[in-house]
């Protein structure tokens, strides 16, 4: 079965308190110079072949439900692995 991955990230101008907390914790552990922003990854198992139309449909689903485009950006891609 084919798999499509949807990555959702907070927009750059939106404060990301979770990423900030992780960044702080990394620094305290001695991992300096690393700035983290935290997002979400959705793995979508797709019945049948992933055509361009199917990808467009998944992009529509991502825009409607998986991401809130007021605060997040998203990226849809076929998982080749």
């Amino acid at each position, binding site marked *: 079965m084919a798999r499509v991955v949807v990555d959702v990230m907070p927009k750059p101008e*939106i*404060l990301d*308190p979770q990423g900030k907390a992780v960044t702080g914790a990394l620094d305290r552990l001695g991992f300096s110079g690393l700035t983290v922003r935290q997002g979400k990854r959705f793995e979508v198992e797709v019945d049948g072949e992933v055509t361009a139309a199917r990808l467009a449909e998944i992009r529509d689903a991502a825009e409607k439900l998986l991401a809130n485009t007021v605060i997040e950006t998203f990226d849809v891609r076929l998982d080749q692995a």
Partner: protein
Amino acid sequence: MAPRIGVVTFPGSLDDHDALRAVGLCGAEPVSLWHGSDSVAGVDAVILPGGFSYGDYLRCGAIAAFAPVMTEVIAAAEAGMPVLGICNGFQVLCEAQLLPGALIRNERQTFVCRDQRLRVASVDTAWTSALTLGQEITLVLKNGEGRYVADADTLDRLEGEGRVVFRYLDNPNGSLSDIAGVCNRRGNVVGLMPHPEHNVEALTSPSLDGRALFESVLDFLTARV
């Protein structure tokens, strides 16, 4: 006959019973509505209560915004029916795009639970007409994701159109422009993070300031009939 005000129960709603009780105490007839129903049972106004609908999965309010009952709530709101979203209900209204902006995690990552001082910034809504512009009120505030954000254009539009309804007096969560509540262009849909339904009885609350929201909508509905 007293106006009928519906309160939607989603899986994970917490404050639906407090909202129903507040509606009754303030003189309207409370009506329980179920998220899975495709009808709002002919009510005159709808309240989306606080809580953690669908476990806050995905994003707060994101799944509830697509619950079956919301199709009719959205249609009724667009036709002018008063709708109030409290806390999680506010998040649902933003996710349903009935209100602009979004609520994200509090600036300092902590769950805030306190009596919150607010400034009334608009009385031209179905839910705030019984308040006075500039009045200071105190309502219960309790949330982890109450930080109001919107892009600069949206904020300018809200300010320009007088659609900020409540502002925090000591901003507890990093909300932009101290925004605690906003309304739609028509003023019939209002969302706010603080909980007016918890401030209606002397036995359990230090202020009774929440009553004014329910009395406002009662005035609105009575005047219209």
